[in-house]
């Protein structure tokens, strides 16, 4: 692409609406996103249409924000009981990318959201996630911006602060990122490892991908199956929860070993068998990736 630095899903063309902009979290992170240079151009809080918040107009519905401000990305901060409704509203209004930060959505609500999104042109990131950032272009989420550097590593993670740790190490090792995405810690989420690996695979701005997994579910195993078919870019992995006991929910609603399913060692094995470089020592992650890419 003639030296253009690419990214996936969000970039300088993103026009962001914040659903729940008048709440404490929504307001704080709207300011942070704007400080980073993200074009947050509208907010939605039902009943507060006509007001302004953080210098942008507030609308009663997402559709109004589309009609008046041409938004194409949403960032959702509304409380759990109303979050699934907010996601569906954003999809109904035709937004291409919906990022749901909210933690604590009942899983049966997420089942309905997943069914609603089928056949539509919206992609969902989260819920229960830190969001997405394409360094130097746009940040739609709650991650500390300053740890990121523009570059060629794509980062996909099920976690929040663990991603910050890894990204910080990557930047310190001189490895910038094309896009970093937290897919969310819930059992049912929108975009998963497999879909994002495909997007990064097609992105000319991404040279290598970092995959940060954890116990529970089989997202890592499915990612491994995809890569085994041939991927074309180096992939590095980390899996949290080697010491997690079975049957306990480790903070994230989706981070639970059920019987003998979802264990970290099985995930690491699946990733390694697919040719992914799994780094076990978290403290050496950035250095290990840098050394491997140099070699």
């Amino acid at each position, binding site marked *: 692409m003639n030296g253009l630095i690419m990214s996936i899903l969000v970039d300088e063309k993103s026009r962001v609406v914040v659903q729940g902009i008048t709440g404490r979290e929504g307001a704080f992170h709207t300011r942070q996103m704007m400080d980073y240079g993200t074009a947050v151009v509208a907010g939605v809080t039902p009943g507060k249409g006509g007001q302004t918040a953080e210098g942008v107009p507030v609308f009663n519905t997402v559709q109004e924000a589309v009609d008046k401000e041409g938004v194409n990305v949403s960032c959702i901060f509304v409380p759990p009981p109303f979050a699934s409704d907010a996601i569906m509203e954003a999809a109904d209004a035709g937004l291409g990318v919906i990022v749901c930060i909210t933690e604590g959505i009942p*899983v*049966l609500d997420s089942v*309905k959201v997943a069914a609603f999104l089928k056949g539509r042109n919206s992609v969902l990131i989260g819920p229960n996630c830190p969001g997405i950032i394409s360094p130097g272009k746009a940040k739609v989420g709650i991650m500390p911006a300053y740890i990121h550097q523009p570059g060629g590593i794509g980062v996909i993670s099920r*976690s929040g602060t*663990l991603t910050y740790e890894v990204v910080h190490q990557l930047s310190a090792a001189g490895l910038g990122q094309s896009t970093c995405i937290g897919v969310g810690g819930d059992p049912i989420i929108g975009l998963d490892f497999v879909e994002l690996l495909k997007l990064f695979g097609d992105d000319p701005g991404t040279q290598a991908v970092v995959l940060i997994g954890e*116990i529970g*579910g089989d997202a890592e195993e499915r990612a491994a199956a995809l890569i085994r078919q041939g991927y074309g870019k180096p992939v590095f992995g980390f899996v949290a929860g080697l010491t997690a006991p079975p049957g306990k929910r480790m*903070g994230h609603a989706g981070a639970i070993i059920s019987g003998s399913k979802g264990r*970290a060692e099985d995930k690491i094995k699946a990733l390694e068998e697919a040719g992914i470089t799994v780094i076990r*020592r978290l403290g050496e992650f950035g250095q290990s990736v840098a050394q491997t890419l140099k070699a």
Partner: protein
Amino acid sequence: MKLHEYQAKEIFRKSAIPTPNGQLVTAVDQTAKAIENVKGPPWVIKAQVHAGGRGKGGGVRLAQSPDEAVSFVRSMLGNPLITKQTGPGGVIVHQVLIEEGVDIDREFYLSMIIDRAMATPALIFSQAGGMEIEEVASRSPELILKEHVNLVTGWMPYQGRKLVHRLDPPLSPEPAKALMAIMANMVKLFTSHDCSLLEINPLVTTKDGKVVALDAKLNIDDNSLYRQKELQALDDPREKEPLEVEAEKFGINYIRLDGNIGAMVNGAGLAMATMDVIKLAGAEPANFLDVGGGASQEMVTKGIEIILKDPRVKAILINIFGGILRCDVLARGLLEAARHTEIRAPLIVRLEGTNVEEGREILKNSGLEFFVAKDLAEAAELVAKQVS
């Protein structure tokens, strides 16, 4: 949130899923009365604890006489029950369910879960009931049948027919009909009660042609408790670690483990990874503790106090990647904890992220003794030194 078997069975009965008649006792002297009300002998005496594997651990006994029933109840109540899921100390039995014995013809397995990859609930049925389903899954996976549930249509009758008419040998018409009705009722129960797991193992046909749920497991999705208030009232905090209950009150995720290195971390993924760092350094984590991505100073203080209440803790690793939680807030929370509680174990602190310089400065000037690690690799080394 987990329910006890007797609580789940009450909900089953209201949902038209037949169970044996039974009565709960909480003291040995209630046994005689209970036995009068419940048909027998034989009676089935079942310890009510959340842990699985009760049968093998001696928590399920068959009493052939009233005297035997009393002696089984006495042996269970107030005593620890040790199963492969409880850990070596076991859990104390506070309640015992006395049920009528059932004349079993065939045993089945029926459960409902959320299929994560398919993003939909699924019903799981097997004719290999009464065994551990994991064992069936690994030995004869062809015996495990799965039907996904479409929430728009709900459970459709054909799905029941599809599962039941595959049985070999076939069921006679009456129990077949009853079994299909139970499947439909189970799906309704799952969705109306926001379950994360429903399990009947075994679900049996009796010699007189009835279908009965002999066991019942029912877990509620914690995220739904705000709209399942009646179910929330069924929570039994006696089943949990006291420190876990205390942490819950402050919105802290704490899980007790077997080691001696306490850990406090912000964020669940980083907390798990930090436990792994401790293990790779040659030590064992004493706990999982996630103060949350946006923890307050008070939560940090409380987190340290909870870790220190565990007498096994020999050192504490604090690993904070400040995002929303700023490092200066963390540092102030630590000092506040030190004011109220004696910090009796060495503290290894690794801070990074928002306001990290200010946080480190506060710790340096506090007069308290900390080992400050510049990164995770160094933190791991410091942990290793503490245990060597």
